[in-house]
């Protein structure tokens, strides 16, 4: 009775003289290795060469500014609540008269810190943010660090630089997953 279609009949036949000489098999093996010798290598040489990342890749965080360069974050704390790794801490402060060009809302984050050792890059902070203030960049990885103090990212390293607000416009409060759904819809590949 045959139980499976994948069974192979084992043969115990004696090796022929050619097989016992080893040499034809060795020559065949040498042929295989030399073919690999000249094959194109698949290695990506990391620091010089970088693998292109997916549009929805969740990399290093950025705190966004609006079109005129004001910080979007209003220190509501929803990101910190949403964070499953409890990586985000913030201290809120009130905007003083004359600071309207710095902060968009009346309340802003005086301190905003993300612990990159805790962060699991899930992107829930991005989903939670009602002000489209925090994003995980798809083209930038959280870099390696040498000391423990290096891994707590404050506003100094998280805030979007003033130079880049002119070049990249904010995509109207869409999160990565929203953009992915949009793209799939547009491409018709769902």
């Amino acid at each position, binding site marked *: 009775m045959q139980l499976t279609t994948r069974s192979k009949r084992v043969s115990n036949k004696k090796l022929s003289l050619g097989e016992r000489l080893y040499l034809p098999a060795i020559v065949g093996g040498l042929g295989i*290795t030399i073919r690999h*010798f000249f094959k194109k290598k698949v290695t990506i040489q990391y620091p010089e060469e970088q693998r292109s990342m997916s549009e929805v890749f969740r990399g290093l965080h950025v705190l966004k500014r609006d079109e005129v360069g004001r910080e979007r974050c209003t220190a509501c704390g929803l990101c910190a609540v949403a964070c499953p790794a409890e990586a985000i801490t913030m201290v809120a402060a009130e905007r003083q008269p004359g600071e309207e060009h710095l902060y968009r809302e009346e309340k802003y984050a005086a301190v905003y810190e993300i612990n990159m050792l805790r962060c699991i890059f899930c992107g829930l902070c991005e989903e939670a943010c009602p002000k489209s203030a925090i994003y995980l960049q798809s083209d930038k990885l959280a870099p390696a660090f040498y000391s423990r103090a290096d891994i707590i990212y404050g506003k100094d390293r998280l805030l979007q630089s003033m130079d880049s607000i002119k070049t990249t416009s904010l995509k109207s409060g869409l999160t990565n997953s929203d953009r992915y759904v949009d793209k799939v819809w547009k491409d018709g590949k769902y």
Partner: protein
Amino acid sequence: MDIYFFLAKAVIILVIFGITLLVATYSTYAERKVAAFMQDRLGPNRAGPWGLLQPIADAGKMFFKEDFIPANASKWLFIAGPSLAMLTACLTSCVIPFGGTLDLTFLGIDQPVQLQGIDVNIGILYVFGLVSLGVYGVMIGGWASNNKFSLLGAIRAASQNISYELAMSLSIIAIIMMTGSLSISQIVADQDSFFKWNIWRQPVGFIIFITCAFAECNRTPFDLPECETELIGGYHTEYSSMKLGFYLFAEYINMFVSSAVISALYFGGYHFPGESLLAGVLPEGALGHNLLTMIGAGVFFFKILFFIFFFMWVRWTIARFRYDQLMNLGWKSLIPLSIANILVTGVVILLLNN
């Protein structure tokens, strides 16, 4: 013997020694590169352009490591082991003819100077003598380490080398019978045209010889003395720093010498096809003669490098033998085969001479 001839010989010996060490150094780099390429990787490419400074970085690392001698090791033998391995490896290359003769009459040397350390009439015997001495380096190192695995590796190395030396020497006897000389330069001179290369006249002997050469150099598929998976490195388990470096380096020098001996004995040494044609094109006199000799030496080095590559190629193709398979192959296949080869060669020589 005049002083200039002596000086010219001294320069040649120094150059041969330097080239031997250089080739051995870069064999370590080539080994890693070839291994990588055959496994679809890129290999070392960070130190210098294409990683060319890697051997220097490796040597620097070796020198700066702690030179440790285990407490229960026999101290003097522990040091003698790698020294002996290195010494015997370095001594071998002096009898190999790297090229024909140089005409140096313009320097006031009347005799033709051969590109060879010394032309002894027992060259091949000298090589075998030194190669079998090389076992002592491994044996003493393994014994002195006072470590079970090292001792096992050393015993394996000794028995393997003794078994394969027999077949190796027997396969050479056929060539010696044909040439009638033990001198390597005489054997090379005998293969002066492409169809007189010994590979055509002694194909079985060549296969036996190259198999034994792999075993003598402790290279895969016969690298049982130093197999990492079974013996954690074999005889050099306890070695560190440059003593370990010497063992590894000696292996590469042995590989270079084996390749040189294979090319000299079976592939016509510094002779190459079209040599007589080229000699007609080159200018007459000393200049043309010297040019031809240098081209011959270049060809010889090309052959050596090819065989070093072949050693590496085989290493990344064939898996290691089991110990009983190794001994079966040596004693039950190669030795009877080489004796049969001697008999056939003797009969053919007898028939041709009558």
